[in-house]
């Protein structure tokens, strides 16, 4: 049997342990989809797969047990899913155009969760539109608030929702619910001074617990959507590590630009000998030095006034 595995992989299929049998990977940016797509995926699994579906660790679906020769038909059946989820595609009916840049994951966000500072799925879809298709191995994840339920610090780009609390002292009745919430559930940066509340702005992480706790609406959310961006967390064999803070109070526009700039940087510096063309960005940064990365990443980026850039950034983690 002759099969170009490079092309197969680029088409979001997998070389499995069983000869001649593949699995199709369905991307679901932001991890949220209309229920009707499930029956389409079921149909593919029943018709061409082995009747099972794996829910992937990146919030997509993997349909195993597909014969190589059925891939074109699977791609046809995938077409309404690809279109419905608004995935960029080059050849209609041809399936997914790339698989390197992984599905963009997100916690459930403010469509459901009271803590979330924004609509995580919508922002994930916006990023997907900007970066996909791309063969480079990038992992991007979004989480609604600093609880980080989506574990974004294990990704190359971790996007964490923040809220800049606004305080209306004339509505404050000194009940101290905010002070207690911040102390018990967050980072303890509120204190009562003369019966009113003072916030240590430098230490505030923008979780919004004060806003949620305040019974009078004295604390409200800032009108601008702002985020913390963390960089180059990773799992893997040599040096698994948590992503570190890069920018606090960064906006959506800048995040997208930074990610796109990073593709340019990686294209320029990736090890041409890297096995399978895959070299994790973090290792490239280890090689070029953080300063070089920062120069590329922030090119033409106009950060909001309140953004704080952390530099230099050091990573820890376990080294083998």
């Amino acid at each position: 049997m002759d099969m170009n595995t490079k092309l197969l992989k680029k088409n979001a299929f997998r070389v499995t342990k069983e000869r001649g049998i593949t699995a199709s990977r369905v991307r679901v940016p932001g991890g949220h989809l209309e229920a009707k797509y499930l029956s389409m995926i079921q149909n593919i699994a029943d018709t061409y797969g082995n009747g099972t579906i794996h829910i992937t660790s990146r919030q997509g679906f993997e349909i195993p047990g597909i014969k190589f020769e059925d891939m074109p038909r699977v791609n046809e059946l995938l077409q309404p899913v690809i279109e419905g989820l608004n995935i960029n595609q080059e050849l209609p009916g041809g399936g997914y155009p790339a698989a390197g840049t992984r599905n963009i994951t997100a916690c459930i966000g403010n469509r459901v969760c009271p803590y979330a500072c924004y609509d995580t799925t919508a922002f994930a879809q916006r990023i997907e539109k900007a970066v996909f298709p791309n063969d480079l191995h990038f992992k991007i994840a979004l989480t609604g608030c600093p609880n980080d339920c989506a574990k974004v610090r294990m990704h190359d780009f971790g996007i964490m929702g923040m809220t800049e609390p606004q305080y209306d002292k004339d509505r404050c009745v000194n009940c101290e619910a905010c002070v207690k919430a911040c102390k018990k559930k967050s980072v303890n940066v509120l204190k009562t001074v003369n019966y009113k509340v003072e916030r240590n702005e430098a230490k505030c992480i923008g979780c919004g617990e004060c806003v949620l706790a305040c019974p009078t609406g004295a604390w409200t959310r800032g009108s601008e959507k702002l985020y913390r961006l963390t960089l180059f967390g990773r799992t893997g064999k040599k040096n698994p590590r948590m992503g570190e803070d890069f920018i606090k109070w960064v906006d959506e526009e800048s995040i997208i630009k930074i990610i796109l700039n990073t593709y340019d940087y990686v294209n320029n510096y990736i090890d041409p000998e890297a096995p399978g063309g895959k070299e994790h960005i973090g290792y490239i940064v280890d090689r070029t030095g953080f300063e070089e990365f920062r120069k590329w990443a922030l090119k033409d980026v106009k950060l909001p006034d309140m953004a704080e850039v952390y530099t230099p950034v050091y990573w820890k983690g376990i080294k083998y």
Partner: protein
Amino acid sequence: MGFLFAENGINAVFEKWAEEYHVYAPKRMEGKGAFSDTDSVRYEEINKVEEIEFDLKSHFSFKDILLPMSETLFFFTEEQVKEADGPKKGAVILLRSCDLHAVRRLDEIYLKNGFEDYYYKRLRENVRFVLLGCKQAFENCFCVDMETNRADFYDASIEKDGDGYAVDNHYSDWEPLFLANSMEKKEVSPSYVTETEVRVEVPEGLSLDVSKSRMWDEYDKRCIDCGRCNYVCPTCTCFTMQDIFYTDNGKVGERRRVTASCMVNGYTDVAGGGSYRQKNGQRMRFKTLHKVYDFKKRFGYHMCVGCGRCDDACPEYISFSNIINKLKDAVAEVNDHDEK
């Protein structure tokens, strides 16, 4: 006399009013709800009719205007006291029938209950009330059973009527202004609701004995003593005093009056470190009986106006109307107990 206004006509009235009054109305504050991308409807100063939120119940009431949550009363030095300035203009407040009934309760408490509250009176004297008609009841409203669904003691009323606004006027000084800016005169009677989905019944034979019921116990755990039910209530009037000194060991400062909540820790603290009603169920008992029992004993009608904002606001889904309805069984329970 009633009038029909086009949008620009009514806005001409608002513009004229602005010379003499601050105009306050429920306004949708985008993104100001506690959860992200949610709104808050609050009383704010408005300039145009489009700013008024006609279609939703406000989360907080007009009370924020008449009894500000935090109000500086006076400034002091060692030798002198200077009263804080009152508002330079009067106010027009747009509010629904239940809230207009709530104004009556506030007047009762602050003006007619033995002595007149100076700071309340100072604000209240120059306020005119414009009734917002209710075309339908909202979730959790129970005004009909509290007999607050209708009010005729307004200065004027306003509601949407097709593309325009129907206004009824009771205040003769406004008559020429309305005449000059309206499209036509017409008979207007403000809309009011005649039924609500939530019904309540305050039982006959209610007495303080009901305090002994076990019904209060469930709120020991369910209620998180956040006070939201009090802060949104148009008839909760409790406050506390704060003396603020501007410098660490200074003798210059100000006195503020700040809204207090009988559900929140600290409310019953007394000098010497004592505190009554530690349990949230007992706080609930106190609040409930005040709203539908002892206020009435004194003034002849219930304090609660049935706006249902406490139900709307409670993060623990504790329904005050449900508590009122539980009183009947609680009365039976304590009577039973006494008989045995």
